[in-house]
């Protein structure tokens, strides 16, 4: 046992080639994460052939470095450009951008970077200490439980749309509707494809996300050119960032929030199929609901960034829990890791600890090292990232869009997706003009298919008996939670209205 731990750790820590590959992986991951449309998954797929030439430990360490760097990198564009680099940092925009507009871009980045690190480390602790317990809970999740948890997550739309409930629900529903395009789950009936084969697999989440956020930023630039009142962030921004830009006192005040967000991130990570596209928004809304000053959320308070960035990075070790202990990949990224392991003759599953203990400990070490590398690279990069704001918006935005096209094309190697990008951009522009909130659409879109698939599965498992949603204990608990979430949110909205009147 001890020798396995030592061997595993030393295969990463005492191996200069491995550390070099991981540093490269972290840098490439951050670049891919920060460019809208390019993701950690794409970077990992690109580096899979490289892992053939490396040892099992080195290969998996490189992929983990890409994964962790890529998930954290999304915060850079979310804060500086108001365009989430990946679905994992949608909620980072909500407070990150207002902070940048107040001139605190450096501080916002610093908070995001440090709490990305903390999220990864807390997730790693859960992976090392309690993964057997967590994975035994995860296998109890059948379709009924999945359906219930998606319903619960959808009730968050109410929190995300506290400004105007009806409009929030409308955009959430639009997200669910766009998710129905393509072949239906279970029976593969073509829906809303209009005979176009390219639509059979539905829209890619990245295309929807980048279309709605990036194109609307570009069109926003066009409007500001017309009206002549350009926002010039380089005037207000404080480019002299000291350390990470925040004080020890601020750090201490966020510890409880970070623990809560980590727990949410890990929990959603171990559930296959949900992952960090949802965990950042869930953590954000929970933080807002439990906060003593919920009105500050969205105006640029660090609590929001802490919640979002801690949760999305805590999800990474969370996804690895069912992968290692059960051999179940939770998302496409975990599937790539699984593929890389299998290729080296390592079969993840309950026996991995006995058969390939060395690899398991190497994975633990690699996650820790990647987190540290990410912290270092982003810390030294911080001063440079902020300089992006020195580029005037009217030049920056077209350049960003060209990068979005690289990402959109890269998702499936077809120009069709670039067209879909503009389609969603147009939808996003219309919604913005009508004062509809955008984030519920993404949440609805992410959860739509999982909800429908598991709803239909559950119904056929229980022979059409709807009551089984309440006889399964976990499912029942989540449905009750969903009910309370709706009631509590409606009450707080009612209270606010009463105060205003």
């Amino acid at each position, binding site marked *: 046992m001890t020798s396995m731990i030592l061997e595993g750790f030393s295969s990463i820590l005492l191996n200069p080639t491995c550390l070099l590959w991981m540093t490269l992986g972290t840098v490439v991951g951050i670049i891919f994460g920060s460019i809208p449309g390019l993701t950690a998954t794409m970077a990992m797929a*690109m580096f899979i052939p490289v892992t053939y030439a490396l040892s099992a430990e080195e290969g998996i360490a490189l992929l983990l470095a890409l994964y962790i760097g890529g998930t954290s990198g999304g915060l850079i564009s979310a804060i500086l450009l108001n365009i989430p680099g990946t679905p994992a940092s949608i909620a980072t925009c909500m407070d990150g951008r207002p902070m940048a507009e107040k001139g605190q871009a450096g501080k916002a980045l610093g908070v995001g970077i440090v709490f990305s690190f903390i999220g990864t480390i807390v997730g790693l602790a859960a992976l090392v200490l309690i993964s057997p317990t967590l994975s035994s809970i995860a296998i109890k999740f059948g379709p009924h439980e999945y359906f219930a948890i998606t319903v619960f997550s959808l009730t968050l739309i109410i929190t995300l749309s506290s400004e105007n409930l009806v409009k929030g629900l409308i955009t959430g529903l639009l997200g669910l509707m766009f998710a129905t395009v393509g072949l239906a789950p279970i029976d593969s009936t073509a829906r809303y494809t209009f005979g176009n084969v390219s639509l059979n697999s539905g829209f890619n989440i990245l295309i929807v996300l980048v279309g709605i956020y990036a194109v609307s930023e*570009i*069109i926003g630039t066009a409007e500001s050119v*017309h009206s002549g009142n350009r926002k010039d962030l380089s005037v207000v921004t404080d480019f002299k960032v000291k350390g990470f830009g925040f004080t020890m006192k601020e750090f201490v005040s966020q510890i409880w929030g970070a623990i809560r967000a980590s727990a949410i991130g890990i929990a959603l990570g171990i559930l296959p199929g949900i992952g960090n596209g949802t965990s950042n928004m869930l953590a954000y809304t929970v933080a807002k609901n439990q906060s003593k000053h919920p009105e500050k959320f969205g105006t640029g308070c660090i609590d929001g960034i802490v919640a979002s960035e801690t949760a999305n990075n805590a999800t990474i070790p969370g996804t690895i829990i069912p992968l290692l202990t059960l051999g179940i990949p939770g998302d496409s990224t975990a599937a790539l890791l699984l593929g890389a392991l299998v290729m080296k003759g390592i079969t993840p599953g309950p026996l991995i600890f006995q058969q390939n203990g060395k690899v398991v400990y190497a994975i633990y070490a690699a996650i820790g090292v990647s987190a540290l590398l990410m912290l270092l690279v982003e810390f030294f990069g911080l001063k440079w990232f902020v300089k992006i704001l020195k580029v005037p918006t009217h030049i920056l935005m*077209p350049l960003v869009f060209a990068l979005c096209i690289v990402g959109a094309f890269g998702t499936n190697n077809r120009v069709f997706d670039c067209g879909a990008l503009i389609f969603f951009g147009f939808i996003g522009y219309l919604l913005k003009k*009508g004062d509809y909130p955008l984030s519920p659409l993404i949440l609805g879109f992410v959860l739509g298919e999982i909800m429908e698939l598991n709803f239909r599965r559950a119904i056929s498992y229980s022979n059409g008996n709807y009551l089984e949603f309440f006889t399964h204990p976990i499912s029942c608990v989540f449905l009750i939670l969903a009910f309370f979430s709706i009631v509590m949110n409606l009450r707080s909205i009612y209270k606010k209205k009463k105060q205003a009147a």
Partner: protein
Amino acid sequence: MRKYKEIISGGVMLLFAAVYFGIGMTIPEFNDGFISSDFMPKLYGIILMLLSGIQIIMGVRALKTNQAEDGKTETQENTSFIVPEVVVAFIFLILYVALLNVLGFLLSTILFLLGMVTLFTQKGERNVVKIVLISVIFSVVVYLIFAKGFGLTLPEGLIG
């Protein structure tokens, strides 16, 4: 126009929901006693119709209460719906994507950047040399990094 925004946007949503629901009616239904693929779309369609109905009613109500203090709200109208720059920007975006299959990534991106940066720069500040340099250098660097360095596939176009 601005006064009726809520009613108009609600109306657009209602129309969209009705069309979506209508197409949903054509999805084949299997009579196996369980939920078929047409169920969710129909449900979403109905809920969206209800919600947009509520939005329209709220819009009408707000209009009635606001009528008393009319005149004041009208002055706030600063951005009209159709802005020439926005229309041109959308045309550029569509042209860019349309050209990708013909000219390939490098050439289309150079043209797109030339057009877009020129459009976004105020007339007095336009510096042709600077715009051309930015467009060409950026496109070439992105092409080299992603297509050559990372080995990603980028649109080749007809003339490659």
